[in-house]
């Protein structure tokens, strides 16, 4: 929790009022929260840029064969290390492979790892956080101390330790990042559950005879989920950074799999050929920016909604 950047400012009031009116309208139209969230995101300047970048990243990953001008593995001996041109927009690498195509296919590896790591750490962290908050006392103390210890290890160092033990492999990269990040989710979920568990509607559900599992899943989780999802955008951006750093060190995806980190590392062996290291870096930069902007925007929107509810 303490790592969440605290840049909360009071939202501008005039814009807020118009939004409250229109969200009343949407509510009257009987729509649910999701289209409203999408609309809020697109209205938020950072959110819109983040959404566009994120959709770009996702479509690069899914439509890679359609979008890339060349086969990313195609070796062209005559075109080795050629600078950007009209045929090869971003130049070619040491085997004459098209860099633009490799960047587009590289989005697949990156997204796989980021999505896998975030999902795994979210589920594991949420379960641990739930157990800690729900059972309290001994279990709470035990789980949280273990998580304190886990979070004391810098994420990249932890990932290095795991890769050192298990060897470089895509799945181990996911596992390593998930392990490094699950503590953050556990802390967040524990905090949310501790607050929610003492609320009246939970007490009411318990009085009505709902089982522990039902209360957890139907009453507490839906109320905690919002913040957890916002937080996963923040985690995704740091997962991406660790992923590309591991690849850069040659401890993640192995050649010939196209991966941004590996491409930058290859570029370092040809210093004067700037295009080899610049363009994959731009790709990583834009992807991280996408998650950062989305995270900031989502948090703004959530804060504003809480503010709305508070005003009603």
């Amino acid at each position, binding site marked *: 929790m*303490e*790592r969440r*950047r*605290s*840049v*909360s*400012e009071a939202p501008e009031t005039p814009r807020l009022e118009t939004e409250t009116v229109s969200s009343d309208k949407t509510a009257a139209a009987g729509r649910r929260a999701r289209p409203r969230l999408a609309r809020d995101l697109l209205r938020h300047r*950072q959110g819109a840029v983040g959404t566009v970048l994120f959709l770009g990243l996702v479509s690069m990953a899914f439509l890679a064969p359609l979008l890339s001008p060349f086969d990313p593995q195609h070796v062209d001996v005559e075109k080795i290390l050629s600078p950007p041109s009209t045929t090869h927009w971003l130049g070619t690498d040491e085997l004459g492979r098209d860099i633009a195509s490799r960047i587009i296919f590289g989005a697949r590896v990156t997204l796989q790892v980021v999505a896998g790591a975030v999902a795994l750490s979210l589920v594991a962290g949420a379960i641990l956080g739930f157990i800690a908050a729900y059972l309290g006392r001994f279990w709470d103390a035990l789980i949280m*101390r*273990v998580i*304190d*210890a*886990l979070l*004391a*290890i*810098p*994420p*990249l*160092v*932890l990932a*290095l*330790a*795991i*890769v*050192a*033990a*298990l060897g470089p492999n895509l799945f181990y990269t996911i596992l390593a990042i998930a392990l490094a990040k699950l503590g953050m989710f556990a802390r967040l979920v524990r905090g949310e559950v501790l607050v929610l568990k003492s609320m009246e509607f939970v007490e009411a559900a318990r009085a009505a005879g709902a089982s522990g599992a039902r209360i957890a899943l139907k009453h507490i989780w839906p109320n905690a989920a919002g913040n957890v999802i916002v937080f996963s955008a923040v985690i995704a*951006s740091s997962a991406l*950074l660790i992923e*590309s*750093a591991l690849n*850069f*060190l*040659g*401890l993640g995806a192995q050649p010939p799999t196209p991966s941004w*980190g590996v491409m*930058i590392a290859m*570029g*370092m062996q040809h*210093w*004067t050929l*700037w295009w080899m*290291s*610049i363009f994959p*870096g731009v790709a*990583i*930069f*834009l992807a*991280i*920016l996408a998650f*950062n*902007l989305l995270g*900031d925007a989502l948090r703004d929107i959530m804060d504003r909604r809480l503010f709305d509810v508070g005003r009603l």
Partner: protein
Amino acid sequence: MFLFISKRIGQTVPVVLLVSFFVFFVINVIPGDPTLTVLGEFATPEQREIARQQYGFDRPMFVQYLDWLTKTLSGDLGRSLHSNERVWAMLVDRLPVSLELSALALIIALGIGIPAGILAALRRGTTTDAVIGMFSAVALGVPYFWLGVLLILLFAIFFNLLPPSGYVAFTESPVENLKLMILPALTIGLHVAPLIVRQTRASVLQVLSLDYVRTAHAKGLPWSAIVRRHVLRNALIPVLTLVGLQLGNMLGGAIVTETIFSTPGLGSLIVAAVSTRDFPVVQSGIFLVVLLVIFVNLVTDILYAYVDPRIRQHLIV
């Protein structure tokens, strides 16, 4: 204060033990035969059996852990599987380099982060604020290893101002040392600076909105005095905590940065050891880095309590 410090140290001990257990456990759950690393693929079963007994791999994991822990705590870290050097000597050799790098990076991060954050807060809503905000949002997205590559391209390859990589000890030639350290330090410093900008801006804004600032203003103190004496003193406390937390991150960042600039610090040692699967070095190197992080956080907390008596009370009660 003494009570606070001893309580805080008391809290740290179980964390250190747990971390040591993690580090040992993670490295030792290697699937497969640990003698493969020591003897290679072509050893006979008898040789493996001897090696297993010699290294103690045949004992239960927990016994091995206790053995490792007592040895580590008494300073016996074993020898590198690769070069047969003493691990302790290797670490002691590398540590000062990493510490110098982190210190320089911290100076850069604070030197940029705090003034920029204060400026953005004092000029809130102006173009200055927006430009600083935009820069920090962009800088936050730049992966530090790529920043390192860009800095080398810019300063070493295009302008030929600084050497791209290498290391000279400070005692040998301070100027050469700084010339070689400035780019890696900039790489890490620029990565941490935006976080400090954001935290400084947010906490200065928060303090500016407090009543006592208005009172100081009302009694006619000039702005500069209010900011210097009343606002900054309180606003910089949360920044201190952030710096403590970020030092761990900086040591993590140093791992990659040292590899790029071939700086012979702890980070590049660990990376090289991971690639050659030199477990004693990886284990002790990582444990040392984590101990440093825990130690820095402990010191930050104590400083924090020293600056702000309320924290002290909170933990003791």
